[in-house]
């Protein structure tokens, strides 16, 4: 079985993408709502990823 080493960013990006797809499909009823909600979830994941990343960077001084 192959072994992969993803960076924090790569792993978090992949997690955000896959989770957003499933959450979009399962949370809303119409196709348009599903796409919108999936994109919204993904955007929020990425925003949190950069926001918390920078907060930790600045917090460390």
């Amino acid at each position: 079985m192959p072994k992969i080493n993803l960076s924090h960013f790569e792993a978090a990006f992949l997690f955000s993408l896959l989770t957003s797809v499933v959450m979009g499909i399962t949370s809303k009823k119409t196709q348009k709502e599903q796409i919108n909600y999936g994109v919204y979830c993904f955007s929020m994941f990425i925003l949190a990823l950069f926001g918390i990343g920078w907060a930790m960077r600045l917090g460390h001084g």
Partner: protein
Amino acid sequence: MASQPQTGALEPAEQPITAWLWPVLAAWLVPGGGHFMLKKSGRGALIFGSILLMFLFGLFMRGVMFTPESGPDYLTTFINYGGFLSNLSAGGIYILTAMFNYSQPDAAGAVHDYGTKFLVCAGLLNVLAIVDAWEIARGEKE
């Protein structure tokens, strides 16, 4: 006396158990399987691909599978049982992995840790897919 209009469709509470039992079982066994069974192939394919990829990446990052065992404190026991239930929720892919004796010791490192979270989240996403299949089968969602 005024009567309600008859549409012919059964209310969700009146649906026979067989209307949703098989799609729910299929959704647990194969991620997206319930959607395929209910003729929602596009959504089923996306769910199957997403959950399978997340599970495979978890394995490739050598994530840890939880076992249902007691720990020295309640929190550890809760994490072990909760993690096991989440892993089990992934259904057939978890069973296959267990059959092939996948075993990874809990090692320090961010990659292993991400792998463990990926494996747990694959199961939790499958729970969302199972509930979605259940709602579609009961006619609460298209």
